[in-house]
């Protein structure tokens, strides 16, 4: 791939160092919560304590009366659109007459100290009339609408092939996925600075600067160029920063006080203030012939979208498109619903709909294997999707689909040895020393998953990048949000590779300097912004090679090939490309206490091409950690619309003592046609099938059905106790 004679160091294929790594280890990297400005005041949001209520009145007087308070704003103070939303503006900036989920913003305060701001927010007197919350997704389909736009965000039916076909062997099941949270480390935070001319500069951690900017400007009633957004250091994202959280509130406060305003969500507020992964209920029926070839997959998927639309519609499209898994399925009937309830809003999280479906289709494949008396891996091999096969949407897979190779390499990886004298810390229960060796069972589970790369279904997905070469130094300007994934490293690698220069500078991303780069989501930045940077760099190189004098500057807007929406039968060429992964989990389970220790997760992943080995490993291991978390501990616990565990004390994510060893059996490099450098995005696949594999391993260890993730200790222990009582 080296395009110049002499190969530069830090080009593609190397584990080039992150350009932001030095400051990050030194503690000097500026995250959004580290920002300060002269004369700055602090913002705080008052949030509703009920999942469904009518607001009879709001008295801001007591808050305004506190010394140090600069502004108290409510719905009446929003000058532009009263609502925002990524796809559909249905979420009020401040609840006006109705509260639709617990933690919905009701008012915002600015004060000279964060504690004063918080006290002032609490001093606001709101008279609520509590209403019955609508919390069951299934019921929401036909229930009285809780929002003028109705309760159904999306309803989709996919009819593929002969929907009346049936197989010799039929297995059926109901599956459930709980509400997972992205739980990034850096809380939502930002700094808004009024420009003195009616406009505002917003420094914020986000995944998509331009779309935030548009929503903010609409709510402020300002022309889009009067709102300038710059990326402030992002402490992880995983989908939760795709929607607007505090952006509008911050800018409103800054414009009202005519001072810089900083806001940092507490951890509790963070849990209440961003979208979650959709909880799902799924009913599946798989049909196969006697040889284990899939004949038909039927699925009904109901996603709880919570109070506001966010990305419920595309999440549902994904769940349905990938409902059958990475298998050749001649016939399918898939029905999906994404509905509005009084639960917290749900939207993007790593895997975006594919995770929920994967848990169900992989449990079904294991069930089918059992019914056929076939090895589960063998069943998957017999049905593995390959290039030229069709999705249930009728679309032909034209790119790389090395599913068989993934299954073979991952399942063939040597199993970890059982430690004859294990450290108690490494047994189920860990530090609690609860394990009894004679009551531990080891289980092995396998799962395969896939999803689309980039945006789909007719969305004009693009990214813009500018490359400027001057004095042998290349400067890249691109609004792609670096959220930890390492786009900054890759952008440098690409430019070094193309231009053969050593020194590459990344300009700070902002809306004032360049067009949109699209969202850092859908595993898309390597392809989209990587593509934009490559094309811009190539154009610069061409001019340089033609003898033009520096500075040379080129801007490129990269679009992926067009896609189309699904038709009324859920058919159509909705996607550009797919990415696949296989996971094999090994677990130890304490049968009586239901505690699980995940011992190892082995994986093979389709990557197209490895552009930075270390960063690929980082994505694989990190994605698996989130998959393991969903399988055994992570869930927002709801009680009639009330969140019971909005803290790191009770929303548990894996610690270093919970995280298993990850064995990368294979990174399959089959270059993707049309992809810049042949590389596929790598961020999401590790999360898609790892949860399903862990759940399968727990089933294998216990013999229990376990149709819900996260698998809770009581799900295992009480079911095991009851099953042995019967026996």
């Amino acid at each position, binding site marked *: 791939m080296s395009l110049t004679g002499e190969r530069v160091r830090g080009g593609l294929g190397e584990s080039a160092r992150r350009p932001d790594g030095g400051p990050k280890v030194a503690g000097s990297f500026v995250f959004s919560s580290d920002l300060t400005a002269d004369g700055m005041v602090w913002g705080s949001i008052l949030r509703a304590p009920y999942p469904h209520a009518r607001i009879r009145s709001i008295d801001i007087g007591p808050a305004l009366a506190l010394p140090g308070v600069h502004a108290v704003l409510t719905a009446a103070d929003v000058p532009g659109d009263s609502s925002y939303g990524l796809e559909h503006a249905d979420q009020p900036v401040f609840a006006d007459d109705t509260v639709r989920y617990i933690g919905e913003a009701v008012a915002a305060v600015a004060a000279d100290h964060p504690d004063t701001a918080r006290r002032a927010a609490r001093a606001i007197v709101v008279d609520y009339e509590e209403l019955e919350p609508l919390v069951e997704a299934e019921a929401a389909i036909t229930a009285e609408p809780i929002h003028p736009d109705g309760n159904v965000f999306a309803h989709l039916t996919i009819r593929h092939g002969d929907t009346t076909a049936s197989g010799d062997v039929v297995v059926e099941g109901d599956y459930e996925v709980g509400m997972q949270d992205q739980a990034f480390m850096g809380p939502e935070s930002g700094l808004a600075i009024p420009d003195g001319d009616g406009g505002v500069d917003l420094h914020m951690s986000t995944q998509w600067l331009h779309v935030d900017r548009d929503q903010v400007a609409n709510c402020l009633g300002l022309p889009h160029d009067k709102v300038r957004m710059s990326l402030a250091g992002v402490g992880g994202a995983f989908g939760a920063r795709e929607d607007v959280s505090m952006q509008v509130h911050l800018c409103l406060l800054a414009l009202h006080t005519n001072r810089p305003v900083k806001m940092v969500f507490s951890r509790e507020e963070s849990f209440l203030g961003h979208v979650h992964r959709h909880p799902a209920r799924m009913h599946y029926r798989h049909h196969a012939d006697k040889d284990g070839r899939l004949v038909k997959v039927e699925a009904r998927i109901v996603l709880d979208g919570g109070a506001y639309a966010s990305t419920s519609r595309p999440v549902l499209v994904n769940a349905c498109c990938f409902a059958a898994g990475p298998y050749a399925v001649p016939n399918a009937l898939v029905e999906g619903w994404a509905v509005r309830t009084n639960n917290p809003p749900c939207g993007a999280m790593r895997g975006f709909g594919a995770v929920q479906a994967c848990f169900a289709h992989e449990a079904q494949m294991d069930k089918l294997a059992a019914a056929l008396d076939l090895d589960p891996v063998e069943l998957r091999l017999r049905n593995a999707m390959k290039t030229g096969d069709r999705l249930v949407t009728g679309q032909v897979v034209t790119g790389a689909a090395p599913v068989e190779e993934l299954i073979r390499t991952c399942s063939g990886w040597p199993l970890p040895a059982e430690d004859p004298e294990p450290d108690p810390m490494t047994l189920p229960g860990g530090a609690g020393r609860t394990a009894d060796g004679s009551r531990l069972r080891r289980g092995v589970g396998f799962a395969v998953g896939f999803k689309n790369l980039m945006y789909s279904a007719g969305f004009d997905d693009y990214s813009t990048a500018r490359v400027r070469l001057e004095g042998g130094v290349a400067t890249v300007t691109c609004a792609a949000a670096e959220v930890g994934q390492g786009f900054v490293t890759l952008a440098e690698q690409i430019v070094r590779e193309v231009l053969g220069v050593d020194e590459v500078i990344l300009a700070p991303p902002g809306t004032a300097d360049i067009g949109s780069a699209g969202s850092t989501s859908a595993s898309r930045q390597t392809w989209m912004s990587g593509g934009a940077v490559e094309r811009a760099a190539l154009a610069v190189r061409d001019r340089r090679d033609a003898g033009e004098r520096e500075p040379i500057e080129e801007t490129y807007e990269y679009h992926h090939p067009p896609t189309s929406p699904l038709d009324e039968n859920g058919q159509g060429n909705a996607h550009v490309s797919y990415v696949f992964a296989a996971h094999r989990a090994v677990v130890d389970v304490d049968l009586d206490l239901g505690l699980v220790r995940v011992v190892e997760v082995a994986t093979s992943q389709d990557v197209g091409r490895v552009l930075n080995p270390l960063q690929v490993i980082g994505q694989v291991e990190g994605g698996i950690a989130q998959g393991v978390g969903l399988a055994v501990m992570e869930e927002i616990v709801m009680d009639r619309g009330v969140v019971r565990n909005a803290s790191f004390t009770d929303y*548990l994510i894996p610690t270093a003592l919970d995280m298993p060893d990850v064995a990368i059996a294979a990174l399959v490099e089959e270059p993707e046609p049309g992809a810049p450098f042949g590389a596929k995005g790598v961020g999401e696949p590790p999360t898609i099938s790892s949860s399903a594999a862990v759940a399968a391993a727990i089933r294998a260890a216990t013999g229990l059905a376990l149709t819900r993730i996260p698998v809770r200790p009581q799900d295992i222990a009480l079911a095991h106790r009851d099953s042995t009582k019967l026996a």
Partner: protein
Amino acid sequence: MTPSVAQPRSLDDAVEALRTAIDPTVLAGGTDLMVAINAGSRRPTSVVSLIRVPELQGWHRDGDEVVLGACLTYAEIERGELASLVPALAQAARTIGSPQIRNAATLGGNLGTASPAGDSLPVLAALDATVETIGPDGVRTLPVLEFVTGVKRTALRAQEIITAVRVPVLRGPQEFLKVGTRNAMVISVVMAALVIDLDGRSVRLGLGSVAPVPVRARDAEALAEGSVDWDTARIGDQTVFGRFGELAAESTAPIDDHRSTAAYRRHAVSVCARRALERALR
């Protein structure tokens, strides 16, 4: 009124600071108090910090007892000689929070908070520990089960502080088991502390997170005591272990909450109690 943070350097000064301060809040390691302050649920007007009071630090042996200073941290409890004198407490200490928490959090603070999920409490209950306090009315000594009176409620009076906890040094095995949904850094769903006193021929089982206050499983204890061959320190009748667990579960009154269910807690108590007894006396 001026806000203040007093940092007394002696017990006398601490008592005096508490006496003179207006509505003083006692601070030890801060791992409970600061969480509440950061969340805005507590707003102290004045603070008396105990972490520099020498009399409240460390531990010492006093005959066949050890006296644990109120400001003894879990990091100090989990290692060294103390760990061999009260092994159940050391095991409990190692399950509490993270290394950073254990470096700061104190035994006195666990008692001061008196959470149903306080991990040291069932151990102290099993040890028949006594809590020593000092205050305007002088010095008091209370058995731990009288000290903890309810969910986050104690017998401490205004301006009184815990000075020490007195526990016996016993000959015999001790166990502590804690169930949580994560392998480290987790609040207890259930815990069981078992203490065997070979010389006093007693079996003591303390249970936590299964009732508003720590529980002693008296029926289970009686069963076990009657089944032990004290010469060999073994229980021969293999049915005793399971029955011990069942009786332990019957002595609890757990609830459903966001961490678990009452049914699971009851079941887990029976499992943990049984395993503890098996480890100790089979």
